[in-house]
């Protein structure tokens, strides 16, 4: 247990900021990120399987993605975008533009939550965290080519999901 505690505190020091940023990007809610980060570390604290994780950061990273999408699923009320922190889109100078952009971002995140867990994680790592296929493969213990193929399929599925939502 003491080993686990050390490992978690080290993880918090080394990667807490990155995990915080990831949760913020996936929830787009400043007011919930802190709570989710606490929840994430408490889960790791109580997790026996975390002890055996070869790469604690990779484990926590996936757990954070899962937690954020779990939150999204449970969320009934619409998310309030972090407007002031979002970079402005070309047409987002107006209030309407901002609303449209926020809606678009929510749509793509909600569609991502409908992918399989693995595909969802790969999409987040590739397109939101902008990791290379090699990094993703290493983190997930799979082959880069497989990650590439999975990403392509996930993208096709996202197009379908977003198109059906549009109809």
């Amino acid at each position, binding site marked *: 247990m003491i080993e686990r505690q050390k490992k978690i505190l080290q993880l918090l020091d080394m990667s807490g900021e990155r995990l*915080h940023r990831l949760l913020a990007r996936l929830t787009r809610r400043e007011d919930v990120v*802190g709570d989710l980060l*606490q929840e994430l570390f408490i889960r790791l604290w109580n997790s*026996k399987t975390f002890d055996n994780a070869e790469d604690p950061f990779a484990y926590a990273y996936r757990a954070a993605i899962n937690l954020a999408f779990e939150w999204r699923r449970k969320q009934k009320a619409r998310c309030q975008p972090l407007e002031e922190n*979002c970079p402005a889109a070309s047409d987002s100078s107006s209030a309407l533009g901002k609303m449209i952009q926020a809606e678009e971002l929510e749509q793509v995140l909600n569609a991502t939550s409908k992918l*399989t*867990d693995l595909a969802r994680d790969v999409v987040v790592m590739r397109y939101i965290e902008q990791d290379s296929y090699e990094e993703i493969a290493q983190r997930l213990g799979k082959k880069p*080519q497989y990650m590439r193929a999975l990403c392509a399929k996930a993208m096709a599925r996202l197009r379908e999901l977003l*198109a059906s939502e549009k109809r």
Partner: protein
Amino acid sequence: MSEINEKEIKRRFETISKFEQGSEVTARDLEKVRKRLAEQTSGQRPGEQKIWRIIMKSKITKAAAAAVIIVAVILGLNITGGPDIAGVTWAEVIEKVEQISALTYDMTAEISYPENKKLSFQSENYVAGENGCRIDMYMNGELFMQKYRLPKEKVAYRIGPKEKTYSRFVLSESQAETESDFPRQWVKIILSEDYTKLGRGNINGIDVEGVEVHNSELLEGDEGVVRLWVDIETNLPVRMELEGKMMMDAGAKRPTKFVMDDFQWDVELDESVFEPNIPEDYRLIIEEKLDEQKSTQVEQKPTRLLTDTEKDDQPMAKEVVRKLLQACANKNWDEFSDLWPGLSLNKMQKIYLGGLEIIQIGEPFKTDDSATWYVPYQIKLKLGEVRKRNLRVRYDETTKRFVACGGL
């Protein structure tokens, strides 16, 4: 709204990826986590404390709680309270997986060879009842085989993208009805065995509870362990593992590990997932009807009258079938091999046939002048399927006895 193409989706992701939260907010939130973890270390878990405080307020509950603690101390149990109170309802797991109409999962198989050499492949699996199932298999990151099983069309495909080849197999009615849904079969088998609870764990942020079975039926006599991890919130499996030394090739036992994970239970799978879409330049290398289809066709042919000698042989043909099915019922695979020379059942076939129940064995008949006899039988497999077919039996001149040769 702009057209939703790949470029547009990537643009939206890019917008999300550019988000950076203020360093003050991050520092504040990280500090809160540190405090919370410090509370954990000192044993003060606010949530738990609150629950215990509420429970201990009531006099009646206080007495009951005291009694539980005493019993727990005597029995050496560990009461952790709080979130550990709710757990997996194991009886509900099978019921829940049975209700699911479609699922996807990943499977990794790893076989170890001497000198630290390993053979591993991964597969993505799609299962959707009567719409079919599909397996995409990868080795070294490359797609090397795709399998489709389409019960509605009563056909199965095996496609080799590297060789640009494919095989097409026509399925019989009962083959089309047979489930090839390993996760559900595994769950049923594991939970029907004498399992040991492993307690709580966490897999990729999901709180799970596990069970394990040593030398499970799934290992078919080999040594090893099978584990099942179930989401405590949904009662649905999250991960299944099979680890042991298993007979793989040329009689050698190899350390082998199978892992099924990344389950998506009850997903919506578009019909297009089950369309093989074989490119025109792919070469058809095998096109065949499977054994059972042949025997079904034979059944439709008129039976012919038996000669007096054949009438004498009829009980022996029937007896071979009875012994063969009984061998499956008793999982006596040596006896099975003796009665069906040349047929080597794989692990999944043994799991499928092992423990079956014989419902009926009919009178052997012949349709032509060949040495083949057809013996009608009806069995109930352990996983519930009732199978009604004709088993093919022939007289083997070399060994001077009847042996089975098809139709199971």
